[in-house]
Each structure stands twice: as C-alpha cells, then as structure tokens.
C-alpha cells in the first residue's frame, strides 16, 4: 500500500534499538572519504539517516551501496504469488524504459512521439475490446497510472453523465449510487467515498463468489449512475456475467450503464476465451478499464481506460491543454508521470502480437489447471475456475470436513518460511467466515516452479499435520506477536486503526493484493 506514514517523535528516534545498550568504545573511522571499500568508510559504522535530512553530502558509491543493502530485505518478486503485477520483462524493453526514464509523459509538446505511442496503444487496446470503429464512431481512451486511476475516472464520468441527464430532466441529483459486487477491489470503495456516491453491494454467498445478475439489476434505481461488473474478481478470478446483466437491462428496459473492471481479465479473456462476450460487443457497456501492469505484461505504473464514445465522457471533465496550435484533451487525476511504462506497453504489443499474447496466456491457463488439479488431489477444495473460464489463478481452501487443527493462515505462514508468499484471505462479506489461499499464475511462473511449489505445500502440510492442537495454538500466538511484519506495523498511525467505514472495517473482508 502506498500507505500513510507517521513521523516519529524525537524521543522515539533517540531510543536505542536494544534497551540498556551501553556506549561502544571503538574509535570511529576518522576520514570522511574512503580508500579501502564502501565498508571501510565512516558511513558503514553509523546509522543511515532516517528522520532528518543529513547536513552533509555522502559519496554516491556509498549512498548506492547502503540503499541497495537496505533493499535486500525486500521479498523476492519471483516467489511472490500474491500479486498480479508483472515482474519480468525482456532486457531490450528494460533498456527502452531506462532510456525514457527522464521523459515526462504529460509534456506532449516536448515528447510528441511518446504521446503518439500512447494513442497507438489506446487504439490497439480499444480494438481488442471491440470498441466501435465504424465510420462516425469515436471511441476514446487514455493511459493511467493503474486501474485505480482508471476506475476513478470512469466513476467520475458516469456520475457526471447521470447528473447532466437528471438536471436536464429537472430532477434531484443529491443521492447518486453505484451497484457493484462486494468482491470489488478497494479502489471502488475509495472512488465511491471520495466522489460521494453511495455504494450498493451485491453480496457474495458461500458458494457464489460473483454477482448474481438478477439481484444486481434489482438494485438499480433512478439514482444509479452505473453498474460495475468485474472481469476476473481478485479472490477467485471468475468472470462476472456481463452479458446476463446487459441482457436483463435491455429486457427490462432499464436506462443505466455498465462499466467493466477488467483490471486483470482485459488481457486474458480476449486471447483465451475470445467468444466470451463481455466487452463493447454488449451495448450497455460504456467503459472498460484494464491494468497494463498485470496481464498486459508491463512493470508497475500503467493502466488503461476506454469509453465507447465521447457521449459517455462528459465534456466538462476534460481539460484542454493547448500546445503549438494543437489542442490536447486530457482526463487524468495525475499530471506529470513517467513515459516509460507506456513505451513498455507498446513494446509488448508489437513484440508479442496477438499470437504471442495468446501463447503466453494459454500457457498460464495450462499451468493454473495443472496446479489446480494437483491441489485437488492433495485434498484441497478448489474455488477457482479452470480451462480459461477465469483468470489463471488458483483459489483453494482446506476441506473443513477434514477437521484440521490449523487454518489457511497457518499454512500461508508455513509457506512463507520456505520463501513463498501465498496469501490467505477472508472472503468477501456474507461469506466472510470463508478463508482461502490464492496463487496467481504470472508469466514467470513456469511449470517447473509450479512443481517446486507443490513439493513445498506437501511438506508444509506434513509439518502442520504432525503438530497437535496445543502446538498449533502456541505457534499462532507466537506468529501474531512477533513475526507478522512487526517491522512495518510500527509505521501504522494509531489514529486510523480500526476504521469502521470500509467493507473491511464493517465485515472483516480482507483485500487481495493486486
């Protein structure tokens, strides 16, 4: 999380890390400069500045080495099976991205070619989603930092359009609402909160982890600005039935729009299940977002949003920037940002082509199916879909009838000791007592690594099976008190602890990383 950080008090800073520590009497390195190596300098024997900018400079080699060493405590992205975010790109594209590091994407005048490359990506992605391209059509889209920004923009557009319609009809605009699944990513809650739109949830049940189209459409009223349908929920990776919602809206003649949150599914479904109708082929779908940095195969920092036509993106939200006689329209929440990720996306699109994406996504689906079947054999209950009917991820839980002493969280922790990050979650509300584990199959998760994971899961299960109830309990206590990221928890400002306004605060749902 780009989390809020609290600034520690002076007293907290000066406290020694180990209580009762006496002063060491070793002569400090005298020289400001170093001749032996970085570790022979005075900086190696003193703490890195943490709370206040140091008065004096530090040689760049030392600054580099010290930060590098510090960062070695971060996890190994390859073993992080919790995240959808891309961790592998080819050397050539890394070079390209490094070369464009100092380019500011928003500066169209200076970097027209980068801007043009964005437009090419928008066009390709729009067409991939079957955006209307016949004469007279004018689908529009833009790049964003990620799906969060894309979703905020889409909500804003839906809200404004609804307001305009209501005002034109002389009706009240004071209480807009939005209909969505309770399995939504936290940014939907944020968007609703920050733009003052009431959230209306379609709750999941014990055996249905996606929205029910009937129930969804029933929630729609005259104040509904739109419906969010998720292509690939973060918990189980299932595709919600956009077509059914669309058809019901048409059948009942309800005037509202659909936004598809295809953060993860947008780059999977078109290649693995091309016949699934979820995109602009459905007439009620007016906007779609996707994350380039998930299955779009780019490093973090790029998302996309496309609208069916400018009609769904009210003019008053678009700001014009005029550069050298060319009008640039922009609709973003951010302004300056790096151009590297957009360039990275274009590289992947032309480098791989449809064929390349299809091959990669099919491989992932195959690996996910293999993992899914193997876990089933190990006695787990599989909650995710197979055969491309959902995202290439495996969601599974322990079989409750097996009466194990330990739960999914214990297994997750056990795996962590082997280096794997396989997160455990509490499911979306109304199915909240349901716990689950999730493995995201990313591009770099090959069959052989999958086998290693399976071997380790088997091992961990054995270890846990061998423990009795007491042992497990003490262990849980121990983990809670000492291990669970106590290191980071320090920064969490107490003021905001235990908020009660989000789905998590209200129901105990935990948000999946994405």
């Amino acid at each position, binding site marked *: 999380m780009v*989390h809020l*950080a*609290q600034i*520690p008090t002076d007293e907290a800073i000066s406290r020694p890390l180990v209580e009762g520590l006496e002063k060491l009497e070793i002569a400090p390195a005298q020289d400001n400069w170093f001749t032996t190596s970085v570790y022979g300098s005075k900086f190696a024997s003193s703490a890195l500045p943490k*709370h206040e900018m140091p*008065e004096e400079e530090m040689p760049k080699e030392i600054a*580099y080495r010290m930060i590098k060493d510090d*960062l070695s405590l971060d996890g190994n*992205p390859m073993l992080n099976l919790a995240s959808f*975010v891309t961790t592998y790109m080819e050397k050539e594209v890394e070079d390209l991205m490094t070369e*464009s*590091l100092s380019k500011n994407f928003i*500066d169209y005048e*200076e970097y*027209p*070619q980068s*801007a043009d*490359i964005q437009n090419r990506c928008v*066009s390709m992605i729009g067409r991939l989603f079957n955006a209307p391209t016949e004469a007279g059509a004018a689908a*529009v889209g833009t790049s964003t930092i990620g799906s969060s920004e894309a979703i905020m923009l889409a909500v804003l557009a839906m809200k404004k359009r609804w307001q305009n319609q209501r005002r034109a009809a002389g009706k009240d605009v004071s209480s807009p609402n939005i209909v969505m699944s309770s399995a939504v990513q*936290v*940014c939907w809650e944020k968007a609703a909160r920050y*733009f003052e739109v009431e959230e209306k949830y379609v709750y999941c049940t014990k055996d249905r982890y996606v929205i029910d189209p009937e129930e969804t459409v029933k929630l729609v009223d005259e104040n509904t600005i739109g419906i969010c349908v998720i292509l690939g929920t973060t918990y189980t990776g299932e595709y919600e039935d956009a077509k059914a919602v669309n058809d019901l809206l048409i059948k009942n003649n309800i005037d509202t729009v659909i936004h598809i949150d295809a953060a993860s599914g947008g780059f999977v479904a078109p290649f693995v299940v091309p016949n699934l109708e979820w995109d602009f082929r459905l007439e009620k779908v007016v906007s779609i977002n996707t994350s380039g*940095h998930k299955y779009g195969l780019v490093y*973090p*920092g790029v998302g996309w949003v496309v609208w069916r036509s400018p009609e769904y*993106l009210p*003019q008053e*939200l*678009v*700001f*014009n920037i005029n*550069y*050298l006689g*060319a*009008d640039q*329209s922009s609709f973003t*929440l*951010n302004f*300056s*940002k*790096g*151009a590297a990720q957009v*360039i990275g996306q274009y590289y992947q*699109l*032309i480098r791989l*082509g449809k064929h*390349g994406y299809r091959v990669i996504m099919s491989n992932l689906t195959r690996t996910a199916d293999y993992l899914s079947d193997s876990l089933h054999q190990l006695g787990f209950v599989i909650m995710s879909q197979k055969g491309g009917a959902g995202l290439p991820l495996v969601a599974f839980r322990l079989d409750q009838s097996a009466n194990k002493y330990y739960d999914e*969280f214990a297994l997750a*922790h056990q795996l962590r000791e082997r280096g794997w990050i396989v997160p455990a979650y509490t499911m979306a509300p109304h199915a909240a007592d349901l716990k689950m584990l999730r493995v995201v199959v990313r591009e770099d998760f090959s069959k052989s690594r999958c086998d290693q994971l399976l071997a380790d899961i088997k091992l961990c299960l054995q270890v846990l099976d061998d423990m009795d109830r007491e042992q497990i309990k003490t262990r849980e206590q121990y983990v809670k008190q000492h291990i*669970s*990221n106590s*290191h*980071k928890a320090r*920064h969490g*400002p107490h003021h*905001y602890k235990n*908020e009660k306004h989000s789905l998590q605060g209200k129901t105990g749902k*935990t948000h999946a990383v*994405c």
Partner: protein
Amino acid sequence: MSLSRHISADDLIRKHLERHKNHKFSATGSRSMHVASPYINRYAAWEPIPKYKLPAKGVDSKSAYQIIHDDLDLDGVPNLNLASFVSTFVEDECMQLITENVTKNLADSDEYPALMDIHARCISMLASMWHASPTDKPIGSATTGSSEAIHLGGLAMKRRWQEKRMAEGKDTLRPNIIMGANAQVALEKFARYFEVEARLVPVSEESNHCIDASKLLDYVDENTIGVYVILGSTYTGHYEPVAEISWILDKYEARTGISIPIHVDGASGAFVAPFCHPNTGWDFRLDRVHSINTSGHKYGLVSAGLGWIIWRSEEFLPKHLVFELKYLGGVEQSFTLNFSRPGNQVIQQYYNFIHLGHEGYRRIQCNSLANARVLSNVLESTGYFTCVSEIHRKKGVHKHTFGKIEESDNPETYNPGLPVVAWRLSDDFKKKYPHVKQASLSTMLRVKGYIIPSKFFLSANLFMFYDAEKLTTPDYPLPPNEGDVEILRVVVRESMSCDLLEQLCEDIITVTETLINSDPVDMAALAHPLQRIQEQAPVARAATSLGELSHRGSPSKEGGHKHGHYKGVC
C-alpha cells in the same frame, strides 16, 4: 494568392507500399523471428509499424526495441526543454538502483517491507524540513505527482469542512475553495472533479501576478473549505505570500469565528525555499498551514512520477477518507487515488536525500538561482527585454534600473522565488520594432533546439467556471481583467550548466537581432508555414485519439479561454 494543391504524404506512402507487397519476393517472411540485424524484419520496408490494431504476429525482441527506439528519436531532448520543471538528470549509481528496483510495486507493502521503510524515512525527512512538530503527529504519503497530492489535500479540507458543518447542523451544499487565477490546472481539476466551486482571486502586476492577498476577503465565506496558496507560481516563479494570507485569515477568524485552513502547493517551491530562503515563513511554522504538497520530480531532483503530501497533524486528515488494509499480520492505512505504481522513484528520493544532504541540495538550488539571475540580468541588459520574474532584483525592488546589478551570492538578498526567468519584449522594443512578434522568437529558438514556449497569458479572467447547479450567476463581481501579458519562460534546472546558459543567451540575442533586421513581410511568411508544419507534425497527430473530444468543444473554451490560454507545463 496562388493556387496550391494539397498532397497527402500518407496516401502516397500507402499506395507505394502496396506496390511493394505485390512483388511477393519479401525476404522477411515468417522465418525472420531470429535474425542477425534488428533492421531485417518485416517492418523495415514491407509493412508499416502497427499503430492501430494489435498485429496478429509479433517480432523478435531486438527488432521491437530498435523500432521503438528509432521512433522515439522524434521526441525532444529532455535537457533542452526549458519549459519544464521536471528533473531530467539521474546519476549513474541512482540509475543502477532504479534498474534493480524497476519491478517493485509501491502498493505491495507485504512484499516490499524495506521499500516501505524507505518511504517512511522520506516522509519523516520532508516533515522535519518543513518544520512539522513530531508531537503533533504529522502524517503523509507519496503520490504520483503534485496533482494527486493536491486532490488529496483538497479532499481532506472538504471533508473536514463537511464534518464541521454537519456537526453545526448546517448545509454542506456549496463548498468553495480559493486560489489565485495563476493556479496550475490540477487545482482547478480538484474543484471540478470533487464538486467544489473554484473562486479565483485575480492577479495583477502589483500582486506579482500571484494571488492578490488584499482581495482575498472578498472571496471567503462560511462555505470556504480552504485556500490553496502556491509557493512558486508556475508562470513567474514568485512565491505567493503565505504568511500574509495566514495573517489575514487570522484576523478574519477573530472577527467572524470562521477558521479557514491553508494548503500550500509547494510543487516546485517546497524544495527550493527550505534551502535558499530559510527565513521566508511559508511552512508548518504557520499554524494555519494544514498540509503541504511538493513534487519530488521537480526540484526534488527525481525523475518523473513522484509527489509528496504531508499534513501537520493526523487530526487534519479525516478518518472517513482513510482506508485500512490488512495483510498477513500487517495493517496499512491508505489515502491515495492510485494503487499499484512504481516504487523506484521513492528510492531515488531517498538516495538524493542521503547522498546530497542539506548542503548538497542547498548548493544545487543556489546554483540554479544564480544561473537564473545571470540569464535575467543578461536579458534585461540588452534593453530588448523586461523580466517579469524578480529573483534577480534586490529584495523589495520591483523595477528594472539600468546598470544596477546586485552582486551578492546569498539568495536571501534578492526577491524570493523559483529559479525561473519569465520575460517579455520591452515596451521600448515593441515601439521601435512593432513587426517583431514574441511568438516568432519562440519559434526561431525552437529551430535551434530550445523549447521556450511563448504565450503564457497572464490574465486575471482566465478560467471562471461555476457548477451549473450550485451557482448560475456569481454572487460576487468578476475580477477585473488584468490585460493579457504574453511571456516567455525559461525554467533553470540543475542540469542547465553555465555553458549551456551562455549558449542560450547568445542564441536569444542572435535570434532577436535576426528578427529585427528581417523584413516584416518575410516575418509573416516565416511564421505562417512553420505554424502549419507544427500543426501537422507529431503533436497534432498525438491529438488524434483524445483530440476527437476537443473538436466537440471543451469546457475550457466555454469557460472563457477566448485568447487560447496556455497552461504551464510542470
């Protein structure tokens, strides 16, 4: 007027490419996936590079690299872009850190605890740099840039205002926010997207083209959620008078009981003032300043994509807006508009903090200011130009006097401001050579490679809009129009060395003299085709996808941009 015919290059190219294809002796069939040279691929001659549709088949990685690499040659050279504040220089060691950490996601605290720790250290250092008192429990977050930070700051002020009004049993229908007419587009965006009425205080020459503090009280009322005060106007680099505004609002509160907070937009200035103007009061030393934002990627010397926001105390960030996210054991609080995003910029920021230290930052920013002073003095000494920015004038002096140049090295002896030179043709010059247009100067300099945009209009009545529902007619008089002042602006960044500066001074003078000596008729001819070329050039092409919208009329046009108002790049 002679007849002329329009030739479409695009059509011609397509026609001839088609002919090629018909020959069917293409050397680059499907076997070309692994080839020796990146120029032996089907895009080298046979097919146009895919631009609109995802190609059915890909190309090998070397070719894909080369295609895009060559394509990007058409982008400008970042260092010659004198229009932008965004930092373009990264040290090698820092670059290495970036490459090593390019995969890291700042949103994934579970996976990257060390990155999170570095994030916290940066916040802590910034807060102490801006004199926040740790006992007040200041709090902050990294953002993608100042835009996001400004939205968050505004959102917090709006929510606090709403909560206060609701507690008093009053309505919350018409929030408004105050800012100078010189505000950057992000400030206006906040107002529009979060449905707050933007009240723009006029700017004038007397108020240094910044918010006019003396007129502030005409705009505030009980519905004012706060005032955005800009530390370092994008147009002229002047610091807005934060202390004075704070004092005025103190008196207002004493009179009416209405307390109005200040958010300081220190996008550029919050990394300059602490080092160069430590005695200027603008930060958390003033009680009324509740939050400050800055751009790490401007004078924080980080590459594009990093901003910061810090609140004086957690009490000024309403709980209502903060989301708590539980991970394996850890809990994080989040208040951002973006989620997954790169983490390497935060590492760069920390690298700069510990590598440069206070002393290093001070020297770099003071060098930039000194270079900006040299440029300003050279320009004014020519007699051709008048500077609108004032960092080269002695503190308190606002008029140019020939032959009198301050010699001090200490930036505090001059008018405080950003290392920005904003200038225009002098009145004498305009009288003498009425045929020379400022825009031509900008165009001619562009031919030499510099990007120095002209046409930043400094006008008071730029961007008035009112939420249609909330206000049909403004209930206070429209600010008087200052009259358009067209300026040229150079942003002096750390990478602008003395050598480049000398070259620039020389080129500006040469270009101006060329223009003086050219025939007015030639001038008109020069301006015209160039502009046409530019319209058809990549910039115009770049407009195609979103540009579609602008043809349908845009709010900014309706809003009174009758002169084609140019917003500053940041």
